[in-house]
């Protein structure tokens, strides 16, 4: 089984690119692959705790929690992008990490495939 590194810049609410990213990660984990998900820019909001699910907005926290429990998935948020949005370490979802951008490049180094979903 392989390792997939996915990076995403797209926002949690306002586009469905992040939904696609999480669905792809979920499919890869179900197939037995390991997935590193890097959330940067507006996508950092996916790693914020206390998200409330509404029917009109994307709600991905439950799926992320399930993925984290598998042990084959890790999610890391860009620390600077989070801080710039007033979202601090204590606001981070349990099980999610925060690092600087070089963490993502290191994950790319050891990945079999990298999928980067930029834009918003």
């Amino acid at each position, binding site marked *: 089984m392989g390792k997939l590194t996915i990076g995403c810049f797209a926002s949690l609410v306002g586009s469905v690119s992040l939904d696609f990213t999480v669905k792809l990660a979920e499919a890869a984990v179900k197939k037995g692959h390991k997935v590193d998900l890097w959330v940067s820019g507006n996508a950092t909001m996916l790693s914020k705790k206390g998200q409330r699910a509404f029917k009109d907005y994307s709600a991905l926290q439950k799926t992320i929690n399930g993925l984290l429990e598998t042990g084959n998935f890790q999610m890391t948020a860009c620390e600077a992008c989070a801080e710039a949005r007033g979202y601090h370490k204590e606001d981070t979802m349990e099980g999610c990490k925060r690092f600087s951008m070089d963490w993502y490049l290191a994950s790319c180094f050891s990945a079999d495939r990298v999928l*980067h979903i*930029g834009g918003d």
Partner: protein
Amino acid sequence: MATKRLCFVIRTLPYKIEGSRLAMTHAIASQTVEIYLEDGDLVEASVCFIADGVLNCLKNQAAMKHYGITSIEQHLKNSLLLDMKVMICKEDLEKFGISEDTIVKDAEDLGGETVAQIVPYSEIQKEMEAVDHLLFC
């Protein structure tokens, strides 16, 4: 010991969304990635500007004056100062009527020696085929 090559392909406009800025800052982060890697392992980043992305390369950006933030121009100069490979699509510059003397080609004012390459798209395609991973921004 291994080197993995990553190519950031910038297609998005400057300032409209964060994509091009994040591409530049992520590419520049390749300078400190060793702290996460085994001794001797390296990540080498290159940056290619295509389509709307070539507008990121314009000189005299006044981002600090208008938005109070650092300019993409400054990030581009920093990447050249770090000897990063920067390629700019010649045909896309021509499509926008942008002449070569109006874009950032070097970081000479900062003491940099590396120069951005203005090349046909075919050369950018070769770069994309040569790297280990592509990151479209």
